[in-house]
């Protein structure tokens, strides 16, 4: 099959402006992944002496969260519950025009072409997305039972791959699904209780600092999340936040 591509190109220096470039690629195999199609395009660009298109990917199995394209206006492209690397060309029609852009958000500056800087996510995690236990301090693993359904629910939330699609699709650029997922994961588990209040306050505060917007509950994030994280985690986060702020006001935590 043949595809016509309209791809955002942006030089490395941030102050330089980007723009769309047009390419056509013949002989695309429908069993190729979207990224393999871009690899092929890049091979032809390199041989012509042009700069290849920069984009992120690593595992190409939908789990590392590296890949991050806006394809036809949707993060990770058409399809439900998958990442860009899991998108196959058979989803597109012959001769279709495909628009490819980087994830858009104030908190994710573009580094080059289709690569954005998502280090804000790391800083949110550093603000409290962990359980404070040093190596060597842990009790025997089965001393604290965790019922099956609780472990399963915690896993559902913990499965977030930190890709940022939820932010890219949100009209407010909110990171609520991402933050909510970690909050939910850790607050469900008995191990995460000690720092529960402090964690939510610090993580939300950091997300604000990084320039992520507030959540107005349009649920667009849930629809594009490759791991199908449910907006329930946002409700949970709001509840946790409210209670924690209250408790803090009462002076019970610092």
């Amino acid at each position, binding site marked *: 099959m043949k595809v016509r591509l309209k791809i955002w190109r942006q030089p490395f220096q941030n102050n330089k402006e980007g723009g769309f470039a047009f390419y056509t690629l013949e002989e695309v195999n429908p069993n190729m992944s979207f990224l393999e199609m871009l690899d092929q395009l890049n091979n032809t660009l390199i041989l012509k002496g042009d700069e290849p298109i920069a984009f992120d990917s690593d595992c190409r*199995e939908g789990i590392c969260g590296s890949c991050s394209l806006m394809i036809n206006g949707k993060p990770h492209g058409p399809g439900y519950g998958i990442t860009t690397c899991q998108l196959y060309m058979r989803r597109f029609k012959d001769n279709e025009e495909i628009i490819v852009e980087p994830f858009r958000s104030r908190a994710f500056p573009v580094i080059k072409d289709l690569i954005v800087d998502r280090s804000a996510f790391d800083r949110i995690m550093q603000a409290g997305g962990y359980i404070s236990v040093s190596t060597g301090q842990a009790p025997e693993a089965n001393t604290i039972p965790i019922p099956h359904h609780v472990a399963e629910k915690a896993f559902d939330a913990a499965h977030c791959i930190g890709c940022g699609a939820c932010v890219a699709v949100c009209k407010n650029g909110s990171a609520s699904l991402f933050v909510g997922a970690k909050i939910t994961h850790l607050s469900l588990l008995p191990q995460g209780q000690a720092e529960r209040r402090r964690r939510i306050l610090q993580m939300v505060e950091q997300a604000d600092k990084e320039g992520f917007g507030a959540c107005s509950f349009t649920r667009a994030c849930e629809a594009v999340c490759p791991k199908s994280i449910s907006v329930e985690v946002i409700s949970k986060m709001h509840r946790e936040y409210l209670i924690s702020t209250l408790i803090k006001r009462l002076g019970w935590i610092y």
Partner: protein
Amino acid sequence: MPNADVDNKGITLPDARIPSGPLSGKWQKLKDNVALVSPQNRPKFKVIVVGTGLAGSSAASSLGEMGYNVEVFCIQDSPRRAHSVAAQGGINAAKNYRNDCDSVYRLFYETIKGGDFRAREANVYRLAEISAKIIDHCVALGVPFAREYGGMLANRSFGGVQVSRTFYARGATGQQLLLAAYSSLNRQVALGTVSIHPRMEILDIVIIDGHAKGVIARDLVSGRITAHSADAVVLATGGYGNIYYLSTNGRGSNATAIWRAYKRGAAFANPCFTQIHPTCIPISGDYQSKLTLMSESLRNDGRIWVPARKGEQRSPSNIPESDRDYFLERLYPAYGNLVPRDIASRAIKRICDEGYGVGPGGLGVYLDFSDTIRKKGVDYLKERYGNLFDIYKEITGENAYVSPMRIYPAVHYVMGGLWVDYHLMSTIPGLFVIGEANFSDHGANRLGASALMQGLADGFFILPNTICDYLAKVGPRKISTERTEFSSLERELIEKNKRLLENKGKKTVSQFHKELGKILWDHCGMMRNGPGLKEAFTQILELKERFMKEVMVGGEPEGLNQSLEYALRVADYFELAELMCRDALNREESCGCHFREEYQTPEGEGMRNDKDYGYVALWFHGGKEGNPILVKEPLVYEEIQFSTRSYK
């Protein structure tokens, strides 16, 4: 091909520093006797950790917790994306939660046997000993392992063992473990003991007075080459399976850091030991950039078969039981579908080579879940392996709940890597190597669910207890990166980059990489033989020369240039590929994944030669012109006997 039987030119065997005494007391003995660094002195030491996979993240965070001053580097944009994140199946631990006679000894013995008696006894015993603590720690960090209804941890079994000792978190165990290690890393960043440098690639190791005292990095965003000094360097850079071009590894996995260390004097051990994983999605075309694994745990609930007749045209569901050949169950009745990976992979390759394979090109066999669906229902499968079935559907467009999966072996893991002693230190003092990057613990074949265990054992529990011995003995030293040892390497690298970028060739890096991969897969893959390896050696040399002259890289040295990153990695692969073939040629026996066709039993099983090859092969760089130098570390088994590995 030069003579493989090289003399060792006066290089003596390095001391493996294995404590004396009974196996079960060795680790404690080391801990009782190492030199310590007192807590108030630890901040004076700086340790560089390269890599943020399970091994690197766990090491960096544990060292940070102890008070050392730690800097970690990784090539991804966040430590959370290190390749460990992709591990699916699970992690082993000798907890005996299933009351099925599991024990530290049994885990130890099975790992040694699985590795075909080519691993170091003391290391493996220590790994088994530590395994249970890993689970405790990861649960404490919040890993949502699978649980039973009453809240106790669940287990499943994996290839090569007869007990259920594998802990798992659906099909995303690696992700959950890595996120746990990443979260402890984050905690240390918040506390100020660890600083993280993402998107930075280490391109060389700096040696000062014979000790590793720093690294040279390329900032993958700005393109700047920078020098970093430290009191010790830890390499946790993962495996080099990508050398084959197609593998299950993430695209970024590479050999550069360990290869540079080799060229600076570190011994490279057993480079030819590559594990081929039996259950991957078959190749569909030559545009493919990687292969996808279907976790081995599927073999617990799926049965492997091919049609009993060649050229069978019926769809799998229309083929009655009597016309199916469940060949693993037939050949290996005791273990059946759960034989170890090397055995299963070879059996699958053979049956396809004989013409019974299914799917495009006959390169595939069925992995069939219909029995389990009948007995336990679809929901049971969904809960255990749901994401694997989803991945399979995305890639192949087929629904494996309805018709069987098609699978074929693919390159997966490398047992070879830098040689380390019992302290996990390489032959360069101050250079430590952990996780898949080192050679230890798995011998000639790795059993399922044991790499995650090794990465975390190395990083959380072993290295933090051994590195202190080195640091205490050498003392802290503030080394300036202005020294010539740093600046000369920086200049060398800038030159090298320039040379590559000035080439105006006709072929891209990936085209060369693909060719190299094919040579290796054909001649140094699932099966090897003498003439083939010699042939590969010549072909690799030829291709390498063409690469240096004809490759087209493109772009600028400054700024982000992914094509340059890739070219630098592939340049190293060419050199490593030579060493792999040399090592494979030298080892005139079959052991584990290393199957030399000349050495097999009449039934087609590998034939080991313990008398002549019961050793770890250490290769030292022979200088610019010289050949690599082979030194042998004999494998001495004190508590167990060499025995034939049988899974019948």
